[in-house]
């Protein structure tokens, strides 16, 4: 065997640990994709791949011999290589191989101190759904309550740390170190936070108290069966958007759920600068009673007040006060009024102005049809154009706040929902009035 095989116990242990859970890599990459590109530009994507595949291969060729084979067998490489990651990510969330049933028992025993037969009246040994860093099982409590039990994969935290390290290798190729540090810190913080199911449980409680009702349904936590790695909550019996659309729902049905999405975003505006930051279709369930089910409260973003208020202020700026565009976009670190290349800054500001106008166009009519011919295409066009500007821009707090906003738009476009925008507009105006207009 060659000498440069990393052969110390420690190193090999590390490799084994990494190969242990491939999910972390995909998960991190999923978030990073948004940080790094923030858009779905085919050309940028392939450029990224060409440049970086080489780099990664170099890094990984260090792990020759058995360890590398192991990694291949476990197809860790698939998850790490960017082209694979980006393509696979679209469905990856639902295709993670389930934990084997003995490991599920082991984790329950370790976390809750007993076998599933003792803990529940019924526990389904096969997972119902894959979560990003765990999986969800259905079960029935002894009192008959139907629950979802989310079980975290072992070793996720370490995996995230090491995967982020690798991902940084890519990132630093097209952004400055300072930028990368900044964005990565934000992502790292959030990812690690999401591995703490106790924290998620607290957030679930808070949202349940606030939102569970006529329009929205959120699960109720079962505290005595929840720990840092296991989260037991009431089961929401609904379907994901794809399944909902497959049933050919009427326009009215689509509008009703669409309205709930729109309201869910706006109902959060006046709440301690804190928003639900995980607006992807997997986290929403269409309940037969017409309510919008919301699951997964691991990713809640609390922004610094200044950032958040300026973000909301974009509404006012675009709608009524265009003379403040530069001021607000500067405050949000989108443009740099002191930068050397003011030509580029001006171009970027113009771009922001145009994109912002398009993005806010729903607010300009009473009823906006998100299925409107060309709206999704125009949004995509702007997103593509953003790649012309070399470095990713904007405060790190954008990452998660826009995730909610853009995520909601994506869902509404996919639904083809018609939404009454007035209520949202009023909430924004009220909030802005309350906070004053300092940048």
């Amino acid at each position: 065997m060659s000498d440069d095989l990393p052969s110390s116990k420690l190193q090999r242990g590390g490799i084994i640990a990494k190969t242990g859970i491939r999910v972390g890599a995909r998960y991190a990459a999923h978030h990073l994709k948004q940080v790094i590109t923030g858009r779905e530009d085919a050309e940028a994507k392939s450029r990224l791949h060409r440049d970086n595949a080489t780099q990664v291969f170099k890094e990984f060729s260090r792990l020759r011999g058995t360890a590398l084979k192991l990694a291949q067998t476990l197809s860790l490489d698939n998850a790490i290589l960017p082209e694979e990651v980006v393509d696979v990510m679209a469905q990856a969330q639902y295709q993670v191989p389930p934990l084997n049933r003995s490991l599920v028992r082991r984790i329950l025993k370790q976390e809750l101190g007993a076998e599933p037969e003792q803990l529940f009246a019924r526990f389904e040994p096969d997972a119902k759904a894959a979560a990003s860093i765990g999986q969800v099982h259905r079960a029935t409590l002894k009192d008959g309550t139907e629950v979802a039990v989310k079980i975290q994969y072992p070793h996720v935290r370490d995996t995230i740390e090491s995967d982020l390290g690798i991902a940084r290798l890519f990132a630093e190729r097209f952004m400055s170190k300072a930028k990368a540090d900044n964005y990565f810190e934000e992502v790292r913080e959030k990812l690690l936070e999401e591995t703490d199911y106790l924290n998620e449980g607290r957030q679930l409680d808070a949202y349940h108290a606030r939102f569970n009702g006529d329009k929205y349904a959120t699960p109720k936590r079962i505290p005595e069966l929840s720990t840092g790695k296991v989260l037991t909550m009431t089961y929401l019996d609904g379907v994901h958007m794809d399944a909902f659309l497959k049933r050919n729902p009427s326009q009215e049905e689509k509008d009703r759920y669409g309205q709930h999405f729109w309201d869910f975003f706006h109902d959060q505006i006046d709440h301690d600068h804190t928003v639900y930051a995980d607006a992807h279709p997997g986290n929403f369930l269409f309940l037969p009673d017409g309510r919008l089910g919301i699951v997964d409260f691991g990713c809640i973003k609390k922004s610094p007040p200044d950032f958040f208020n300026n973000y909301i202020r974009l509404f006012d700026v675009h709608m009524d006060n265009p003379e403040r565009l530069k001021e607000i976009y500067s405050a949000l670190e989108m443009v740099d009024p002191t930068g050397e290349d003011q030509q580029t800054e001006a171009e970027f500001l113009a771009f922001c102005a145009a994109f912002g106008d398009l993005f806010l166009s729903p607010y300009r009519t009473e009823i906006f049809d998100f299925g409107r011919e060309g709206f999704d295409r125009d949004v995509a066009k702007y997103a593509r154009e953003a790649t012309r500007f070399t470095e990713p821009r904007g405060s790190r707090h954008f990452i998660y706040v826009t995730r909610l906003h853009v995520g909601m738009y994506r869902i509404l476009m996919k639904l083809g929902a018609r939404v009454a925008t007035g209520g949202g507009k009023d909430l924004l105006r009220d909030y802005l009035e309350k906070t004053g207009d300092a940048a």
Partner: protein
Amino acid sequence: MEPDLFERRERAAEQAASLYGLDPQTFTWAAWADATGEAEADLKLLFSTKTAALRWFYTALPERIGRRLELIPEFGTFTLAERYAQYVYTALDLLDSQREFVEKTYRRYVIETSGTHAFASGSAAFFRKTAGSDTRIPDINRPFMPDFVFDLMGHAMLRLVAFWLEDESDGSGQTLAWVDKTTALFQEAAYSGVADRAVDLLKFIYQFLRR
């Protein structure tokens, strides 16, 4: 139901391990009888010496595990990897329940014994029997699974416990991940019959043993 002889011995051995784990000095026949609720004379029928009970804690592990596996309702539907992993996790559970004792004595009573320890041979027998009765393994693969493979796995079991005792990762995550992946890999090799993977696995186990 009256506990059978095995169960009485198991309870007595666990109490012995618990007392010894707290403080070897306090592990006396009297204290032991007190803790188990058995008369001293009865204890002496179960185990001829105190040390015999402590050793039994380890030598009887395969049977103790086997009895617990029988209680899992869906065990019959488990795949090869799941059965193996369940075996290992159950072993770790039993050891963990007397962790202090195990930390004090595992080397002396298991690793450093001469010849093959019953925990290794009994584990090997379980691994062999489980593979032998698994109809999902195509016959064409069986030549790649000679007996020594299972003996190796039995030995790996002993080493794994030593590794686990040193594993300071959160919730013994390193050990869990290792068990999960090696059993999955073994199953893949056994079910799909990629001979070179099986050879890889052997090498891997061999390297693990040498650590």
